[in-house]
């Protein structure tokens, strides 16, 4: 049986404003599998993820994936303001906003999906806590829950193990495994080669000839 492809990148040149950052990238992630992107900082891992999200330009070649609303994204933790007055539960609910649309109020099904996602990352009891008071690992798990609340077919995680304690790393890896069993395709970037093998079905190294 042929594998169902969740993401296929063919001979893509990727960059910003006509300046190429990555050239000739070809890769393929079937549903239910995990691709780990490795490479030093600045090798273009984030750029590749952004190109899949449509936030970086595809200058040549092609990227074929699910529709935007079926793609989940877990950004790098250090891009977020820890003083922001928002609770962990609210952050997870953001993962539903696109589904809710503009006019409908946030419904019970949305709250339930958010609560379930937070429960799956083991933080059900922290929903009311301000996002910024959580530890780095817990915050990362909240962002993972947010992406899961949107029920994505393809989930992109940018350096999810950065600044994450051992407990949270174990929790994150367990959830990622559950997701792939359920058929979600994952793309995980990490600069830490030691962490690459654990979740990976395949590894793509950037910045090497």
């Amino acid at each position: 049986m042929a594998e169902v492809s969740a993401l296929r990148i063919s001979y893509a040149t990727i960059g910003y404003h006509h300046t190429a950052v990555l050239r000739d990238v070809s890769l393929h992630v079937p549903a239910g599998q995990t691709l780990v992107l490795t490479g030093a900082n600045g090798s273009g891992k984030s750029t590749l993820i952004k190109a899949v999200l449509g936030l970086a330009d595809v200058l040549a070649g092609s990227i074929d994936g699910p529709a935007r609303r079926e793609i989940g994204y877990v950004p790098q933790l250090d891009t977020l303001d820890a003083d922001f007055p928002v609770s962990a539960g609210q952050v997870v609910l953001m993962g539903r906003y696109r589904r809710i649309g503009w006019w409908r109020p946030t419904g019970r099904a949305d709250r339930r999906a958010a609560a379930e996602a937070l429960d799956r990352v083991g933080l059900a009891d922290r929903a009311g806590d301000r996002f910024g008071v959580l530890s780095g690992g817990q915050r990362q798990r909240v962002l993972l829950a947010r992406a899961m609340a949107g029920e994505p077919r393809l989930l992109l995680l940018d350096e999810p193990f950065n600044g994450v304690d051992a407990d949270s790393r174990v929790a994150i890896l367990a959830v990622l495994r559950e997701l792939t069993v359920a058929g979600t395709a994952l793309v995980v970037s990490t600069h830490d080669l030691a962490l690459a093998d654990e979740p990976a079905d395949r590894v793509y190294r950037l910045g090497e000839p």
Partner: protein
Amino acid sequence: MLIEPFRVPFMARALAELALLALVGGPVSVFVFVRRLSFVADALTHTVFPGVVVGFLAGGLTGVFVGALVAGLVTALVLTLLTRRGALSDDASTAVVLTAMFALGVALVSRRPSYTSDLTAFLFGRLLTVTPGQLAQTAVLAGAILMLLAVGARAFLFRAFDPGGATAAGFRVGALDLWLNVLVALVVVAAVRAVGTVLVIALLIVPAAAARLVSDRLVAMAVLGTAVTFAAGYLGLLISWTASVGHGIQLTSASAVVLVLVAVYLVLLPAGRNR
């Protein structure tokens, strides 16, 4: 003694006007706070000023509203475009534009014989001469602002907290920024005749800043911001009434309101230390 002054119609209307402004000021200031738009809000109050003056010269008091509206919307658009290109970090050039606009307003108004009193009215408002018609206008504008805010609130929150994530989720950040800037402009327009272009900045910044000192919940911040503004409006009016009627001291009511509002912020400041 505490409600007696508000039996006088113009005092009641002033309080009603402030209640409407408090209603929008609470929630809008929360988004100004989390999006760090204080500078944008400040910019708006400065650029609305020449609009107010031109409107007044062209069409009297009705013209003030139209002039403020046009200037506010144009500024919202220009500021959105400037921030998109990242040019707003260039404080100097923006400040030049702001002062230029402000000076233009002063130059225009100085051509009038009633220069001083007009200038005072534009800068600090005429809270005690709010007419029933103006009150109705403010009510309509407040309703529109709250509706536009309610529809966009979730997206504004997402964008403020995590612009990258919001963009990845398919929200158009530029459009959201324009939308929020227009809302801030509309608050300035709604408030400008009553409290003036300078004091309106307090309504856009202090409510949420004060509420943040005692709460880190956004809804609570909005409600508290409104409550604090209304309380300051009531107390400020009462103080200025008592000062002028009871003691013969002239105290502009709008400035009394803003001073009370800032005093509340200062009282709450120690509470913020543990948050």
